[in-house]
């Protein structure tokens, strides 16, 4: 008996060998016979993004608003700390989880809540009991208001999803125009040594499963805050 792989691959090859399928016909390029959709990139069709950084930051801010991401531009680390201390006071946060980067450490200076670091692992219940998780990220995507995180840039897989409030600290140099650029950046950065986890986060967790009515905080964070610092 041959194994599943051989069986399936043989079936596929057999199915493809006999019968060529008709190519899909393009609806937008009817005038030009030579052109096929493959001559185009997603960028031409997807939502347009300005070239300048300030346009991109504005777009990211607008998208954040629609998504209910709380987006703050911070002139200095001091500004970012002030925003954090308001959040800590408002929510009476007792414990905050984070991983060590220069920015997360600077942000948490002078903070009085207990800190759980995931740098060398954590107990699930311990992380679950935190009031917030603070992480870095790979980049911010202006086009969709998404944030690309990964295992190394966000302290593992769970830190950015288990605590009820996720705070991301990022730099303006991390802004990229669109999804294509974000994926290219990941490829350049990691070659073929990709982390096992990469995720586009686009707003706080949500569901519409009950009567299609939007509720935030289905299983992941109810709130998502992005603190954007100048370089």
């Amino acid at each position, binding site marked *: 008996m041959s194994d599943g792989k051989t069986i399936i691959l043989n079936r596929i090859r057999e199915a493809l060998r006999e019968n060529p399928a008709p190519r899909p016909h393009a609806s937008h390029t009817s005038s030009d016979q030579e052109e096929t*959709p493959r001559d185009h990139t997603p960028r031409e069709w997807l939502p347009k993004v300005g070239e300048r950084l300030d346009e991109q930051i504005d777009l990211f801010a607008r998208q954040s608003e629609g998504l209910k991401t709380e987006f703050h531009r911070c002139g200095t680390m001091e500004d970012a700390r002030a925003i954090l201390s308001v959040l800590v006071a408002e929510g009476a946060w007792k414990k905050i989880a984070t991983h060590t980067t220069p920015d997360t450490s600077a942000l948490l200076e002078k903070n009085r809540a207990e800190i759980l670091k995931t740098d060398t692992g954590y107990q699930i219940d311990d992380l679950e009991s935190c009031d917030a998780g603070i992480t870095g990220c790979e980049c911010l995507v202006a086009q969709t208001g998404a944030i690309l995180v990964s295992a190394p840039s966000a302290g593992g897989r*769970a830190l950015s999803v288990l605590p009820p409030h996720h705070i991301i600290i990022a730099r303006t140099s991390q802004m990229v125009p669109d999804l294509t650029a974000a994926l290219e950046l990941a490829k350049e950065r990691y070659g073929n040594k990709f982390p096992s986890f990469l995720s586009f986060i686009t707003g706080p967790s949500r569901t519409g499963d009950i009567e299609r009515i939007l509720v935030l905080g289905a299983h992941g964070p109810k709130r998502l805050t992005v603190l954007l610092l100048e370089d």
Partner: protein
Amino acid sequence: MTTFASEFKKMAGRYTADLTHRAFIKKALSGYYQKRDDSKASFQSWQGARDLAAETKYEAVNHLDRYLVEFAEKIEARGAKIFWAPSAREARDYILGVARENGVRSIIKSKTMTSEEIHLNDALEKEGYGVFESDLGEYIVQLRKEPPYHLVFPAMHLTRGQISDLFQKELGSAPTDSPEELTMIARRVMRRKYCEADMGISGANFAVAETGMISITENEGNARLTTSLPRIHVAILGIEKVLPRLEDLALFLPMLATAGAGQQMTCYNTMYGGPRQPGEIDGPEQMHVVLLDNRRTELLADAEQRDTLGCIRCGACLNVCPIFKNVGGYSYGTTYQGPIGSVITPHLRGLQDWKHLSAASSLCGACTEACPVKIDLHHHLLQNRRNAAAAKPVMIEKISFLGFAWLMSHPSIYHLAAKLGRVFQPLHPIVNGTFLDPLIAWTRSRAFPNLAPTSFHEQWKKSRK
């Protein structure tokens, strides 16, 4: 008629007569239309994006062997285990085996239609494993012991009142009519399950050949938790999910979000390339990827309908389908409802048993127009009808059509028939709706239109005189 066909007729009749249900589904979808149109409008060209998506899927599906092997080799090199499952049974047995060998006790699942297709929950529960659906809608229908109503919105047929009653009964929670509170009840229950589960089972929306990753799209965060906390991750996906390049996701993620739920981007789009890698602090120790054929290769062999393997299961064709909106998700009796289900179920589960679904169509083409990957759905319904009739002609249909053709090619007989119709129609009310009514199939639920006093042909003749 097969039992499946008569069951469909019975259910469809019942749901169509249920006006409350129809109004509820219509209302639930109205918000979707608005958001979908807004999201489409943000594209520079939605049609251009559809062309490119269709072309990318064409390339992937027509070189499926090459891209599957590339995907498998890449992700295996990073420590994941690939299992090639020719049939549903082999997929189930493999997953049961993994659970058994690792002494698994509790299993958490994120939404996967592929596992519905192979009835994985039943198999796991029969072996004594606790299996919990974590997607809110899936959790609700699981508590009700029902299958998903819609492949993207599993519990869209239920009112908040019904869900509150369900939670009261099953979870002992206090009654509420707030969707938010209901969501929080489920959130609290699930939190404990994530922390306790030792196996997480997910599906996948895409498999990227170039980098050896699977990509999972979700809004709730339940799939992320399912794949982060338990020590074993099993992903089950159809062999058609593969995309050639990582960059293809830049196109497919926003398209899936737009067509599926009217979002520009779904909340979490996560790419997993293997179990926890050296130097990483969390994630599962083992990752198993089950690649399921289960007669998908038969669809592949049908060049005419091969494009159906490009389906990204967005549900857009269901949401616009007049049949779906009237008969609802349960009438189909299939894992995949709506137009795409009607097209592919005959291939996956037998043409003669499931051909009736291809007849339940107005051929309006709304599905084809809605499909982000340009699957020619309504023509495929016609092809299924043709194939079914060619394989097993139905005598009464054959005779009727011969008669019809004869009538239409003999004008004088046709005119006579029309005249006779006009003479006898006034007598119709006597038998209307009774078993003597020759038009009973129509008049049971509809009024028969009155024939015009003079036909167009007669009027034309007169005006030319």
